[in-house]
């Protein structure tokens, strides 16, 4: 299987401070990959590097075989990589439908916009009922669904989810996860789940990374990673 | 500028020497009227530039309405000397008091506003005052007023007054910034919340800076109009005053004491030179200011990192 997305030897941070010391991940085509670690381990920074919000001080980012390390965030979306940021960050004053349509702003996605909208509504029928409501008035779960829908509207080959489950009720998370699995299976969209909760995210995924203090400390298929090794990684006995 | 300045002694001697030299020049009138006239303008522009710098560069209050105090003090001078026939020092003093009072009253509501909106509101206040004076019969509406003084002070005398005002404001500004207050003020500019948490009374510090700057700017305004002899609503409350302050501080470098001094010298020389090309001068000054903001935001006196950076890193 070829990697649709790969980050190699990334080092990045803010000012003199390196939040990511040395990290690399890869997402095979059509795979569901998880990246977990404690709060402050550098996951979000790594995601911001992936999306182009922060430039890495060294390292390389590849998407569909092309080097996108220096690419602007909006061009990455056009190239097929979309990040759903923490909290979703819907456009609060715009209606759900306007939020979704804005997702296919990019020229390539615009042509498919109608079909994509249809698909999003099939995936989250609840959104269709509320499509003319401002996103700011929705519940947390609905906002997250709107954000996912908006990401799907850009017709991505890879979606990165940063702390999807943050602040959501477990049942809501469960149902959203099921939708993601469906997307992954049916649409062959490659997915990276970035979460704090190691167990749940790993159960969902084909391959897992664990990040601590700016480094990937452990990786492997969920079956190969025993609880002991994970605990070892977390408590720094390496 | 820095607390542990190794050259502090040398600097003090140097500055005192310059001051005494200029004082002698003003008292004897030796350099000739033309030079003194330049010197007078430079000193006053240093003063108002430094005050704007204190507001914007140090305290983070970018005002576009300092001309309110220039207009108020200029008009007070004209009213006191012409309408009531009183001596001009009294006019200057009264202008100062009125401006201080106005600044205090304005500070009551202006300080509730931040950043861009502070800038706009100060400007609206100045415009509103201009409009008010334009329609007040007491100040002859748009026809303007003259300043009378018997005998009218000569340029040497005006130069000395400007020199005293300028030196005094520089010394006071320096003392203010070196005091615990000063550090608080700069902390406030960089992060008001953190400053508050660190025990700086942000409101009080801001108010003090605002009123101080207003008072000194008002004194400079009195001297300007004492020299000019006439005042109109458009000249007193002219946004052009702010344009010059912005230019001086941007060119020199905001947040430094030396910056506006160099900026003011350049401003007066440049605008004097550009006066040969009527109509072009403000355009050229504006273009220079924009280029400076875009390409050299720290001004020409400073190539080291901004003090802002130091503070943020130190935190």
């Amino acid at each position, binding site marked *: 299987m070829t990697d649709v997305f790969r980050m190699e030897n990334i080092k990045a941070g803010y000012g003199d401070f390196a939040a990511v010391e040395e990290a690399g991940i890869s997402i095979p085509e059509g795979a569901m990959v998880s990246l977990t670690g404690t709060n402050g381990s550098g996951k979000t920074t790594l995601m911001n590097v992936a999306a182009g919000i922060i430039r890495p001080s060294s390292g390389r980012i590849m998407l569909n075989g092309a080097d996108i390390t220096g690419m602007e965030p909006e061009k990455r979306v056009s190239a097929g990589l979309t990040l759903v940021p923490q909290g979703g960050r819907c456009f609060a004053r715009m209606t759900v439908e306007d939020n979704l349509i804005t997702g296919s702003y990019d020229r390539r996605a615009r042509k498919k916009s109608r079909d994509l909208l249809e698909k999003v509504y099939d995936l989250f029928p609840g959104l269709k009922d509320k499509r003319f409501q401002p996103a700011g008035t929705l519940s947390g779960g609905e906002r997250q669904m709107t954000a996912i829908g908006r990401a799907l509207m850009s017709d991505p080959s890879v979606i990165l989810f940063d702390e999807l489950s943050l602040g959501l009720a477990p049942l809501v998370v469960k149902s959203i996860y099921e939708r993601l699995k469906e997307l992954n299976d049916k649409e062959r969209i490659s997915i990276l789940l970035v979460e704090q909760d190691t167990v749940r995210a790993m159960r969902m995924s084909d391959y897992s990374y664990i990040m601590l203090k700016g480094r990937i400390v452990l990786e492997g298929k969920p079956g190969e990673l025993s609880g002991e090794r994970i605990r070892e990684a977390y408590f720094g006995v390496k | 500028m820095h607390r542990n300045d190794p050259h502090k002694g040398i600097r003090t001697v140097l500055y005192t020497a310059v001051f005494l030299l200029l004082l002698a020049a003003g008292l004897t009138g030796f350099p000739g009227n033309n030079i003194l006239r330049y010197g007078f303008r430079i000193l006053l522009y240093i003063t108002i530039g430094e005050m704007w710098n204190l507001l914007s560069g140090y305290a983070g209050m970018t005002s576009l309405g300092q001309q309110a105090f220039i207009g108020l003090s200029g008009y007070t001078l004209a009213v006191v000397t012409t309408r009531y026939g009183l001596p001009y020092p009294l006019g200057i003093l009264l202008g100062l008091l009125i401006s201080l009072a106005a600044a205090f009253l304005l500070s009551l509501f202006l300080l509730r*506003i931040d950043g*861009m909106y502070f800038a706009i509101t100060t400007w609206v206040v100045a415009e509103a005052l201009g409009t008010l004076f334009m329609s007040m019969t007491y100040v002859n509406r748009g026809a303007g007023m003259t300043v009378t003084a018997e005998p009218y002070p000569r340029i040497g005398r005006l130069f000395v007054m400007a020199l005293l005002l300028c030196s005094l404001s520089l010394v006071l500004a320096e003392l203010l910034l070196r005091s615990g207050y000063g550090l608080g003020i700069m902390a406030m500019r960089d992060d008001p919340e953190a400053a508050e948490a660190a025990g700086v009374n942000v409101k009080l510090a801001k108010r003090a800076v605002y009123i101080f700057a207003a008072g000194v700017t008002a004194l400079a305004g009195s001297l300007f109009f004492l020299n000019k002899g006439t005042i109109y609503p458009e000249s007193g409350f002219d946004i052009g005053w702010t344009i010059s302050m*912005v230019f001086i501080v941007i060119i020199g470098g905001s947040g430094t004491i030396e910056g506006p001094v160099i900026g003011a010298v350049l401003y007066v020389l440049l605008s004097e030179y550009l006066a040969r090309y009527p109509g072009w001068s403000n*355009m050229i000054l504006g*273009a220079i200011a924009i280029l400076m*903001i875009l390409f050299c935001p720290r001004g020409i006196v400073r190539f080291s990192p901004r003090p802002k950076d130091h503070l943020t890193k130190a935190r």
Partner: protein
Amino acid sequence: MYILQAIVNGILLGGTYAILGLGMSLSLGIVRLTNLAHGEYIVLGAYTSMLLQAWLGIDPFLSLVISVPFLFLAGYLIQRFLVNKAMKNGEEPALLVTFGISVILKDAMLLVFGADARHLSADYGNVTVNLAGLGIPLLNILLLILSGTSILLLHLFLQRTYTGRAIRAVSDDAGAASLSGINVGNTFSIAAGIAAATAAAAGLCAGMKWTWYPSSGGRYLLIAFVIVVIGGLGNVGGTFAAGMVFGLIQAVGGASYGMLISYVFLILILTLHPHEAFLRFSDKRRKTCEEGIMQEPSVAREDQNASE
């Protein structure tokens, strides 16, 4: 009867006031920047119409076909090459850049057109329509129609087009907008271009109604401010209503006191509710992007704290 007439005219003039405020409302609501040169854009719009009328002999209303794209381009280029760059260093440098542009434009127009008072005139300028016993200038009606149409078109543009949605998205959360494939800098420039384009229409309205000078920009800018503060930021419908209110204040207060009343009004609103007046909606996110779209300080801080 006289008062009734004044009120009717005040409301009709409200259209002109509304369009004066429209561009400011857009640039404040979307770019989150006070464009201090907006008044000069309006004056530039009036001069453009004047020149087109003088050279080509076309009706001032028709001149919009040329003056609107011209001002769009001017606004777009200035935002793109000057203001966007300054915005990376913060709000105040950008504000001062627009201040510089205002000074330059004002003096450039003074140099080119001289200090004379100007006025846009047309044959129908003095025609009065008799409606229910009230003599209403035809011009006021036309101006109301023009401004109403412009505002409606702008509203539809913002609601129905991809670019319009992108503009609203950027104003809501610029960081998230760039993650949705929107080029924030370019969207700012387009929004600034549109704001300048509305100044072409505003210049036409103001120029037909009143005389102007190269230095009239400051006055227009202040009117624009009052309108924006009354009507709410980036709120196209509110801007229209605010224009009406302002027109009434002017009609009741008279020329010079009307202006003074509005200054006081503006200062009062700014003082009492500075944030409510300008930032009625989720603003915290926007702060992120003001510090550069490329930075996410809250995240940075969180990561930093945790590892220290």
